[in-house]
């Protein structure tokens, strides 16, 4: 799939809470066939404070409407500036970028695990899996009940399990302590979230001897494999998160 650079129109903007919002972008021409796990590089505003692009996961795709969604967490100056965009504004993006999650056999039991902004790529992945005959379980972690986002969306693709740190919804605790990890058997787990969470899930997968893929969020400049800034130290040497990832099998990582 050829990469391109385009100005896309914001068809809808949805504010989820103080930290999260969704931008739905409409293709100028037919949007590319995105693969689950891919991302886009967003130009913020070209100001001196937000000089570089921001890599953002594809959250959802609607080929019927010719749109795709970006779920964005306000984490710094760049994402705060992006949060001020409104319906009708345009956004300069480079896409589609990166590899994708590998696809399971339809008979496999699959678990998607997400925490924080890491839940973003799992919706598109889950929908893709479901349309290919594999209904996944989904385990999402939030701080508390009021921080839960996109719950209804995830419920459309499979069984959703939730943990909250205060127990206000789902099981109390963290993703890594949820009972589903010990009571159900999986063939494969896909994970995106904070490093500590992904490392814990990788260790769970290793113990159970199941396939585990994680999507990394390394700092990036170009997004197309030219600058070599977003490297990951792997068993195959330094690889670029942007073109060799963002999805990696944990067996290739030095975790």
């Amino acid at each position, binding site marked *: 799939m050829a990469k391109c*650079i385009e100005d896309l129109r914001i068809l809808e903007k949805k504010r989820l809470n103080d930290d999260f919002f969704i931008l739905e972008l409409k293709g100028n021409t037919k949007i590319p066939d995105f693969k689950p796990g891919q991302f886009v590089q967003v130009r913020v505003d070209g100001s001196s*404070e937000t000089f570089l692009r921001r890599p953002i996961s594809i959250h959802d795709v609607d080929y019927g409407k010719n749109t795709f969604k970006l779920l964005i967490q306000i984490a710094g100056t760049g994402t705060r500036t992006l949060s001020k965009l409104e319906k009708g504004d345009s956004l300069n993006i480079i896409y589609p970028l990166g590899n994708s999650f590998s696809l399971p056999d339809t008979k496999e039991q699959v678990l998607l695990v997400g925490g924080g902004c890491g839940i973003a790529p799992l919706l598109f992945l889950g929908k893709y899996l479901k349309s290919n005959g594999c209904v996944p379980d989904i385990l999402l972690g939030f701080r508390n009940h009021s921080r839960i986002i996109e719950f209804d969306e995830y419920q459309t693709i499979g069984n959703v399990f939730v943990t909250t740190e205060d127990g206000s919804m789902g099981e109390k605790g963290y993703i890594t302590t949820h009972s589903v990890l010990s009571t159900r058997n999986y063939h494969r787990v896909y994970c995106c979230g904070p490093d500590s969470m992904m490392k814990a899930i990788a260790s769970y997968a290793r113990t159970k001897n199941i396939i585990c893929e994680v999507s990394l969020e390394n700092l990036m400049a*170009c997004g*197309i494999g030219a*600058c070599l800034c977003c490297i990951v130290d792997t068993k195959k*040497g330094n690889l670029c998160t942007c073109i060799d990832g963002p999805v990696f099998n944990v067996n290739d990582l030095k975790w």
Partner: protein
Amino acid sequence: MVNLGFSIGDLHFRNPVLTASGTFGYGSEFEDFMDLSRLGGIVVKGTTLEPREGNPYPRMAETPSGMLNAVGLQNKGIDYFEKNIYPRIININTNLIVNVNGSYIEDYIALAERIDKLDKIPAIELNISCPNVKMGGMAFGTNLDSAREVTREVRAVCSKKLIVKLSPNVTNIVDFARVVEEEGADSVSLINTLLGMAVDVQKMKPSLSTITGGLSGPAVKPVALRMVWQVANAVTIPVIGMGGIMTTSDALEFLMAGASAIQVGTASFIDPQASVKILDGIENYLKTKGFTDIKDIIGIINRK
């Protein structure tokens, strides 16, 4: 019709817009975004004798109007380049220049000898200014005797055009330009990155694994422009200017200050089409102003 071409000795470039080493991969990374043959030249990723893994992550930090990098010359070495990369890029119809690096003078010589045998590489850019390696690199480009010696030794084995890439991290860059010209360099390119640093106050740690790194982007442009102007007025060989060029106007400033050509670097990270947009912009500017040859504006601010 505007003549955009320039030459280093008998090596002709169809226009003065090149892409800077380390910011444009081997060219192919950008082929979805442009016709690479439109470029005046591509300076490919810094190459060393042996493979290098570069520095640990994090090796990049965004700073006001720029970025710091500490990549540390990650590359797969000259053997891999010859076998796997060179055959893949030789069909790109532009001047392909290899940026050459080493820890010791012997490394530079051995590399230059190897590249001298590659027919489709008409020039090398001798990088004596990388700030991100423990040995070699900038150490050669910040000591006049070392700069002289490495240029002389490489000149002796290199029949290609020899461009020496200068470091801005010196007291007087003109002295270095003069020394490498005396030793037979065909051109100088400047500036490499400025040594800088940043601290992550949340983590209370340096932003880069190496603590210091090379600053690039618009933040360095006025410094780069001043140095290019100084050097262009001090040497007779062509000067290739770079440092924070993001727009046509930036590129024109360097040309008017005396650069015969420019390299687009960090801008390609933000807009992969920046180099060809700048090329179009230069041509339009010349047409609008009624110039027929780009030489008419090279160093125009220095004419009495």
